[in-house]
């Protein structure tokens, strides 16, 4: 049989039998908590995949999405937050998503309701939580106080703190020291800290060449793209970036500009950018979904991203207990969202969820304002092992930093923002 004819025939047959059942889904309600890379994508794709059959409410307090990827360029001075911001309006106008501009304060998994801070209560058939991370400030002595005073920042969620960190760097005299402390993995955005070191060094090289970037990493080595980052520091920022592995920060003092480590001698810095340990955001932990790694991350059935702690609740993005070699990245959250969306549409339509979902990931990192490196991977769900594994032989790193990849990185950002919001 002619292969083309055969393919067309089988596609047509599949359409008749195993296609989604719009009638079964009509009136079904999905609530999505969180409008980041995961949540916004889930909201859009549930509408798309259900052919607008499922009602979707996105609970997100902000009017504008601000991207964490590329936000290190705001710290480095080559972008503004406005460049990285997109409105949620297209989700509403083009895709019929209801945008509840509010914060979810409580989930009742038994009654299947979400209470918002404004007092209203949303009921759901399926709930998607894409809550992001919380900082565990108590993992570093003195950090909580210094953070509240605005003296020691993280800027690990793009927004006002990103600009505030930039202002601290601008106020620092030439010859000053910027210190970045990195917690043990896993944390949000594995290459993020190392890209930030590049971006701060990029600013110093042009405007404050006597200044230093000190990186104190609790890990054995640079967590992502180690060879590429170390070569970039040596080639492009010699005498500016100093990298120190196995330095676990235990205390900071804003008044003295002091960082204390578990083993090594203390260090003084003019600007301290301390990243503490991270965990799933409060709405997930208080709902009892963070059932892995001593209550830090949310366990999911990887085939669907349904919580292993509560039925009909799907957790996606940085808050989950990751599978092997699965980064906590925006691209990955977007891909989690699509698997969860398809699983929800399948369940509400009365067909089995896809037995073999796939994920891709790409993390671009800017070495300066134009030159970029990447790491990429493809992940397949293995039913026999009930987890995702990277496809062997696929994925990889940049051969070297390049402007061409810089253009692809900018393209990636525009496209993925549209893929989640427009």
């Amino acid at each position, binding site marked *: 049989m002619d292969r083309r004819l055969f393919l067309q025939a*089988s596609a047509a047959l599949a359409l008749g039998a195993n296609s989604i059942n719009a009638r079964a889904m009509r009136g079904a309600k999905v609530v999505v908590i969180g409008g980041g890379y995961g949540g916004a994508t889930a909201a859009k794709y549930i509408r798309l995949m259900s052919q607008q059959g499922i009602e979707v409410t996105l609970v997100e307090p902000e009017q504008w999405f601000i991207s964490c990827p590329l936000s290190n360029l705001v710290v480095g001075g080559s972008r503004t937050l406005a460049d990285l911001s997109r409105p949620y309006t297209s989700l509403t106008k083009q895709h019929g998503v209801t945008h509840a501009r509010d914060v979810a304060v409580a989930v009742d998994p038994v009654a299947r309701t979400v209470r918002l801070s404004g007092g209203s209560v949303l009921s759901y058939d399926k709930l998607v939580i894409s809550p992001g991370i919380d900082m565990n400030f108590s993992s570093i002595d003195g950090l909580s106080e210094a953070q509240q005073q605005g003296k020691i920042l993280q800027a690990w969620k793009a927004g006002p703190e990103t600009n505030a960190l930039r202002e601290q760097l601008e106020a620092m005299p030439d010859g000053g020291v910027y210190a970045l402390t990195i917690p043990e993995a896993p944390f949000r955005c594995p290459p993020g800290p190392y890209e930030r070191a590049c971006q701060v060094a990029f600013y110093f090289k042009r405007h404050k060449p006597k200044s230093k970037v000190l990186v104190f990493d609790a890990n054995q080595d640079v967590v992502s793209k180690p060879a590429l980052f170390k070569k970039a520091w040596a080639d492009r920022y010699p005498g500016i970036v100093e990298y120190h592995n196995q330095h676990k920060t235990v205390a900071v003092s804003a008044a003295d500009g002091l960082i204390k480590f578990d083993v090594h001698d203390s260090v003084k810095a003019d600007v301290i950018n301390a990243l503490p340990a991270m965990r799933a955001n409060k709405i997930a932990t208080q709902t009892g979904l963070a059932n892995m790694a001593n209550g830090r991350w949310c366990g999911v059935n990887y085939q669907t991203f349904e919580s292993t702690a509560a039925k009909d609740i799907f957790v996606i993005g940085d808050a989950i207990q990751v599978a092997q070699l699965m980064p906590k990245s925006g691209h990955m959250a977007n891909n989690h969202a699509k698997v969860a969306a398809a699983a929800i549409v399948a369940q509400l339509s009365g067909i089995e969820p896809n037995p073999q979902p796939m994920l891709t990931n*790409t993390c671009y990192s800017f070495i300066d304002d134009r030159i970029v490196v990447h790491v990429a991977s493809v992940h397949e769900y293995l039913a026999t092992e009930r987890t995702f594994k990277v496809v062997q032989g696929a*994925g990889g790193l940049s051969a070297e930093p390049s402007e061409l990849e810089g253009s692809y990185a900018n393209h990636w950002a525009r496209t993925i923002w549209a893929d989640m919001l427009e």
Partner: protein
Amino acid sequence: MRTIHMLLTLLALQTILLALPALAIDSIEPQRAGSSPPPVRTGVDIEPQSLSMPPLYVQSLAATCANCHGTEGRALSGATVPGLAGRSADELVAQMKAFRSGERKATIMHQIAKGFSDTQTQLLADYFAAQKR
């Protein structure tokens, strides 16, 4: 309610029966080539996916391309990475093979292409070929 259940069962049965030839062709063809065990694909070692899988699964598979190529393969205007929607399926399959073999040079796509099997590539190509540009 009962009628709906019966209908669904019938539909499911129909799918299984109609899908059988597809599975048979997939598994028989490589055996004809005489090698054993029969690899269905060249690129990667994963479970074969049937070419008659439900459209929702294919849509979900194709969504892994959307981050860089646009939702449903429609690129943004002025994009530096090409769209996939409305292109010939044969051309898309050929490009994926060229990326995998290294014949077509790339910064990243040669690494991503190796993550998808021949069957998945065919499913993706047929899906994108059927999308509006």
